[in-house]
């Protein structure tokens, strides 16, 4: 089956009020081209699930987020995502703040079609106070230990960015960490992978061992080739984080005027290609 598609076709499946899972971690290998496509559309009231980075910051700044499920939102080299901070302090969305491990457990429970998974993480902390929907469960075995019953985080749509993929939906990470991209895909009804390059299946082995083929085609509905599609987050070994551009992005959270200027220059464009052109022009201009 040929699953090649476009960012526009993939994101057209996203409807108001859906739950969207976004792979990557902080400012690392985020499906930014797909996020930018969301910004071009009127879709709103999303529940976003993410180990958050600028994906979350951009969607918050654009007013797309009704509810956010997260453990943190960071740009890594800038510890706190400034657009996320501004939206959070303005009370712009419902915050479901979890321990990082609880978030993994919620995705894994959904991936396994379980209602919950037990964990010790969360006990005693305010995670349970600020998320009163979280319940405890008693072990049926000796000791009857009480644990947090982390509910499944079921996703309508998952988007992730990988280094390589084939047309059938197998996908390869070539950087240091697969993050939780497989769990996002397995927890979702519809799963879209953007990648730096679509390759022939037999060519995966030129880039890395078969251990790097983290997504198999049961996990994927659509494949989008978007070179530079993780920009400005890192996507090693293809490219590192664009720190200069990330600083410019962070500075755009300063006030409404700065954000409007950033939006006009980089986001309110008709396509990903136009975005990449705008970034190139910016880079030339700042030399």
């Amino acid at each position, binding site marked *: 089956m040929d699953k090649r598609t476009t960012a526009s076709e993939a994101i057209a499946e996203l409807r108001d009020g859906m739950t969207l899972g976004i792979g990557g971690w902080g400012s690392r290998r985020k499906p930014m081209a797909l996020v930018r496509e969301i910004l071009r559309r009127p879709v709103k009231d999303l529940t976003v699930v993410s180990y958050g980075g600028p994906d979350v910051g951009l969607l918050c700044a654009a007013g797309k987020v009704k509810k956010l499920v997260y453990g943190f939102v960071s740009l890594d080299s800038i510890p706190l995502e400034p657009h996320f901070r501004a939206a959070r*302090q303005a009370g712009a969305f419902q915050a479901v703040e979890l321990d990082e491990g609880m978030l*993994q457990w919620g995705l894994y429970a959904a991936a396994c079609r379980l209602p919950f998974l037990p964990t010790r993480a969360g006990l005693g902390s305010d995670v349970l*106070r600020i998320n009163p929907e979280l319940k405890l469960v008693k072990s049926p075995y000796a000791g009857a230990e009480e644990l947090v019953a982390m509910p499944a985080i079921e996703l309508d749509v998952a988007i992730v960015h990988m280094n390589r993929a084939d047309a059938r939906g197998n996908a390869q990470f070539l950087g240091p960490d697969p993050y939780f991209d497989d769990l996002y895909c397995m927890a979702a009804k519809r799963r879209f992978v953007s990648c730096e390059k679509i390759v022939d299946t037999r060519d995966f082995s030129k880039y890395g061992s078969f251990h790097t083929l983290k997504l198999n085609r049961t996990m994927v509905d659509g494949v989008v080739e978007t070179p530079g599609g993780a920009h400005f987050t890192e996507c090693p070994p293809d490219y590192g984080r664009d720190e200069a551009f990330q600083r410019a992005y962070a500075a755009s959270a300063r006030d409404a005027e700065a954000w409007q200027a950033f939006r006009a220059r980089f986001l309110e464009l008709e396509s990903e290609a136009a975005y990449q052109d705008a970034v190139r022009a910016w880079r030339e201009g700042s030399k």
Partner: protein
Amino acid sequence: MTAATRAEVCAVAVADAFRGDGEKLASSFGTVPAIGARLAKLSFEPDLLMTDGIAMLLADVQPVSGEAKGDPVAEGWIPFRSVFDLLWSGRRHVVMVASQIDRYGNHNFACIGPHARPKAQLLGMRGAPGNTINHTTSYWVPNHSPKVFVERVDVCSGVGYDRAAALGPQASRFHEIRRVVSNLGVFDFSSPDRRMRLASVHPGVRVDDVVAATGFELAIGGDVPETRAPSELELHLIREVIDPAGARERELAA
């Protein structure tokens, strides 16, 4: 060798917190804790494990400043999901930075003000709830003040001793806050009621200075000792091997 600076005393105090840990993952946040963990590994705790901060377990010890020491030697692959697995197994001691901490060691770096509508969003919960209930934790405070050492944390991200006790012995059996190291002194929870105890004051700091900078009543014994001075070997390791560019001096409050 010139006398130890305050940052160097703090780094050695952090290193001492890792004593006895053996084959555990030593995770650290902040420059002084990163130096302390490396110092412990290079001297009295050679079996500690450390990462490159990304996904590699490093067999060698890399400096926190200046030039890297050759190519890093990988002894393992530890992506985030493996870090979670490891921390749930308990074989880890983390040093986290505290934005707020109270007398029982309840910790906050999530936000200031009510969580529903924070006055200042900080890091969020991150891994603090899972870390503190699963394995040993210590804290680093580079700017000891009543704004950090507070009567009550606004939000509890890391679990303290009163909350752990309320969970009962079964749920709290892996909970341990080993040490709090600040720019003024070293603290532990060895008092009978598990209140934060002033274990030592750094050279040049008076007990009264610590009391004045703390927003709650500390447990203080008769004679509070001075934090131990770094040895000649430790100063050599800090200055020449671990932090040759002196990053440690920039982290402490002026």
